């Protein structure tokens, strides 16, 4: 009798305890399992010889590839250009970061935004801009030919072209991070150093730079990771000689159909990335001292300074330097904007290129009408927005928040989960797609629903960012409010609707905008799957980049620039969430 009651009560409890939120949580986990972990495991299996007709484990592929010159060359080149890019971006960017942190002047916000712009642009836009500026017919090349008699740089098939492209892209990363670093330096330390007799350069060398190590390291690792995994730029500019591992994976899988080789390459790339990211996480900047300053003398303003020749020279040097960096980083954008209105289909209408974008004009190079490209892009992007938020929210909610309310400590579990959701970050977009293809290419569903896989891959790219945005917002929500609401009898759904969602709404909106922008600019995964009928704006820009009619891809690129910029503004207005990649 007693046991029966207990049994009934158990079932009843189970039914009552069954919450919709657990259903969502389960869906999120299943997605990660099937879209990421199983494919990743498959890639590793294939790398060890299992799959594609052979069903025994072997180190043959792992060993074979190490002996290949093409692989070694790619590895050496990948490291080489990444280190070059890192070094050059730091050398150029550090002083600008200093300038922004130390000087206060009208219009500074705008200049900072402009300097940051390249960092948030999709890589294809940067690529197109570079081609339009520095390519054989680019306006910089033309100008340099007029002035010096020879082109400034040859963009295609040279190391310097690729390094230039990556550096222009990454200076902004360095500026952004080191500006925070310079700004966090203690004013007091500088004052003490000065009273102790140190000159300004002694202060910078002996105190400022050592104290900024953390920021410099973060910036360096980000730049390194970016250029190490660079795809679109190297694919377009590297030609036969220069390939990153990422490009090699793509060509192995999608041009030569060598899946074992592609999987092996992915394995090695993953190891290198994981090592670098581990380094980044374990070495990220420790808490920096905050100065106990009374409030003035924080930034040097121009007002009230007595002009003398030293000051004038210093200011002039700074303005020349910053203008040059600004101009260089904006060159690609200028090139794209200029081309989109200057080289147009219909001479009488300045905006004809833009109008054509939304028309149903068929483009045989794309195999689609331009309007369809826009519709594809929006469809995929909205899918990514839905999926990434729907998947990130339950995990962030449960592990970032509810685990602390319901149980006392679940720290281990939630750390494990955050690792699991951030792990796709260590996996390059091309590798993510390779996993999906290896795992599912033989299913009917795969072939008939390629767009689903494009959305899935892009969601995996966006998910870590969305998760971090939402979970860091959840961390700001006081658990007491929820506990109080519960004691007042509110259901879980009700709590979510009336307490959590209003609290999160702004962040969710920011996350939506952000994942929208990621989807729009995403190139690697989309190109990997690319089916003509699902061409997106980014793919179209890439395909049309060297076409005879550069006005159309430029107009597409301008749209991508605008959306990236708006989403970037939304994030910085949104809240003080850190924007670390």
């Amino acid at each position, binding site marked *: 009798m007693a046991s029966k009651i207990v049994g009934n009560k158990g079932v009843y409890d189970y039914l009552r305890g069954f919450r919709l939120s657990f259903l969502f949580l389960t869906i999120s986990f299943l997605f990660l399992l099937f879209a990421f972990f199983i494919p990743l495991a498959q890639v590793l299996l294939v790398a060890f010889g299992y799959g594609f007709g052979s069903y025994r484990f072997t180190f043959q592929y792992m060993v074979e590839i190490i002996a290949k010159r093409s692989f070694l060359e790619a590895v050496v080149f990948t490291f080489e250009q990444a280190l070059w890019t890192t070094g050059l971006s730091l050398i150029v960017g550090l002083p600008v970061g200093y300038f922004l942190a130390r000087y206060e002047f009208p219009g500074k916000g705008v200049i900072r935004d402009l300097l940051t712009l390249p960092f948030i642009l999709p890589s294809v836009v940067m690529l197109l801009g570079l081609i339009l500026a520095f390519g054989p017919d680019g306006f910089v090349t033309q100008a340099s030919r007029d002035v010096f008699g020879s082109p400034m740089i040859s963009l295609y098939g040279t190391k310097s072209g690729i390094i230039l492209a990556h550096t222009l892209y990454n200076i902004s990363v360095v500026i952004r991070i080191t500006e925070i670093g310079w700004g966090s330096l203690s004013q007091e*330390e500088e*004052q003490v*150093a*000065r*009273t*102790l007799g140190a*000159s300004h350069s002694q202060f910078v060398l*002996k105190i400022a730079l*050592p104290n900024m190590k953390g920021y410099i390291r973060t910036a360096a690792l980000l730049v390194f990771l970016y250029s190490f995994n660079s795809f679109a730029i190297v694919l377009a500019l590297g030609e036969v000689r220069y390939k990153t591992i990422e490009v090699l994976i793509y060509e192995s899988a999608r041009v030569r159909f060598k899946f074992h080789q592609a999987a092996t390459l992915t394995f090695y790339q993953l190891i290198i990335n994981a090592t670098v990211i581990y380094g980044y996480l374990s070495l990220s900047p420790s808490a920096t001292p905050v100065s106990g300053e009374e409030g003035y*003398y924080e930034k040097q303003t121009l007002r009230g300074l007595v002009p003398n020749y030293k000051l004038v020279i210093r200011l002039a040097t700074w303005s020349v330097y910053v203008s040059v960096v600004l101009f260089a980083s904006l060159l690609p954008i200028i090139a794209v904007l200029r081309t989109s209105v200057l080289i147009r289909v219909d001479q009488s209408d300045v905006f004809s290129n833009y109008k054509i974008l939304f028309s149903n004009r068929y483009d045989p190079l794309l195999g689609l009408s331009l309007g369809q490209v826009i519709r594809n892009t929006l469809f995929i992007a909205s899918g990514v927005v839905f999926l990434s938020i729907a998947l990130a929210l339950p995990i962030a909610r449960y592990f970032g928040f509810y685990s602390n309310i319901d149980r006392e400590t679940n720290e281990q579990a939630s750390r494990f989960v955050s690792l699991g959701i951030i792990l796709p970050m260590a996996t390059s977009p091309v590798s993510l797609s390779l996993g999906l293809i290896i795992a599912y290419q033989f299913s009917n569903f795969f072939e008939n629903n390629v767009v689903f896989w494009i959305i899935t891959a892009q969601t995996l790219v966006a998910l870590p960012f969305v998760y971090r945005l939402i979970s860091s917002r959840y961390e700001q929500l006081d658990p007491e409010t929820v506990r109080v609401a519960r004691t007042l009898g509110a259901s879980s759904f009700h709590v979510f609707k009336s307490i959590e969602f209003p609290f999160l709404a702004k962040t969710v909106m920011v996350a939506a905008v952000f994942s929208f922008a990621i989807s729009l600019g995403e190139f690697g995964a989309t190109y990997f799957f690319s089916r003509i009928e699902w061409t997106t704006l980014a793919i179209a820009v890439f395909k049309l980049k060297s076409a005879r009619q550069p006005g159309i891809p430029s107009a597409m690129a301008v749209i991508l620039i605008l959306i990236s910029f708006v989403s970037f503004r939304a994030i910085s207005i949104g809240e003080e969430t850190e924007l670390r990649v």
Partner: protein
Amino acid sequence: MSDLRVEDLHFSYKSWDVLKGISFSVTDSRLAVLLGASGSGKTTILKCIAQLLRYDTGRIYIGEEEITGKSPQELNVGYVPQGQILFSNMSVARNIEFGMAVKGVPREERTRKVKEIADLLGVSMFLERKPRELSGGQKQRVAIARALAIQPHLLLLDEPLASVDAFSKEALALEIKRVQQETGTTTVYVTHDQTEARLVADQVVILSHGKIVQDEPLETAVSNPSSIEAAILMGIPNSIPVKQLKEEILAKYKPKTGVIIPFDEIRLEPNRSEEDSELRILGKIVKVTQDIYQNPILVLQTDSLTTKPIRLKIRLRKQKNFMEAKTLEEINAYLPHNKIRIL
């Protein structure tokens, strides 16, 4: 070592006049305490002296030399800012020798000097540690050692005990005093805490709203405050500014800035009638406590003197009738008119 002279110093920030004509001097290797509430401009004066801030007008002399417009590097002034600022990337030893290192003093001499100074301040055992491994008090010693290592003409200390834990405060204060005397360095010491001031000062400069309200040797500052404001800042108990006093009291004593009820002159005599020569204060005893020498202190809450009730401290040393008093009981206290200090 060198005398410091500040003349008519004005400093403004945006539209706010932070310093409105500051003049004072410190001579004979003495230690002057700049005492004032927060926002009174103490730190600003220190920074002006170190030439870290550019002031609007005024002159500052170290010795006979006017230093206005010089750069901080040229001054040879030991500056110890608030908050135990050490160079976090350097060891203690390298912190201390920094000033010598940038001036190119040879290594052997630096090492010798570092050891000497570290011994003086009792930090020799930490020399190889990094700042984050030190306690607040230890950091402050290192910061002072670093400032002294350049053999400064002048030592400037900004709230040196501010974030030192309560137990070490007094000891460190006395240590600073000792070191200052041993090295004979003319020192300006900024604090808002009169206890500290009493422990270290040779001279007390009291600052209020960007102006000096009193500049006296320590003894005079305590025994003979120039105004009620100075008295409050010096921590003299039962200092009541005029704006709190009742009309009748104002009429009776005609104070300019306020009155002080000396806390060891009050008599508690519950059952006695008022005499003409005395002021009767009616109140309740709300608390019994101790001063730093563990003498019992009674706290009497009264509205006899002021428009709103205030609490007066009464030293119990001479209170024969104390035993009869109980807390929260109405009680009469008496004070001879001539003992009241009118400022």
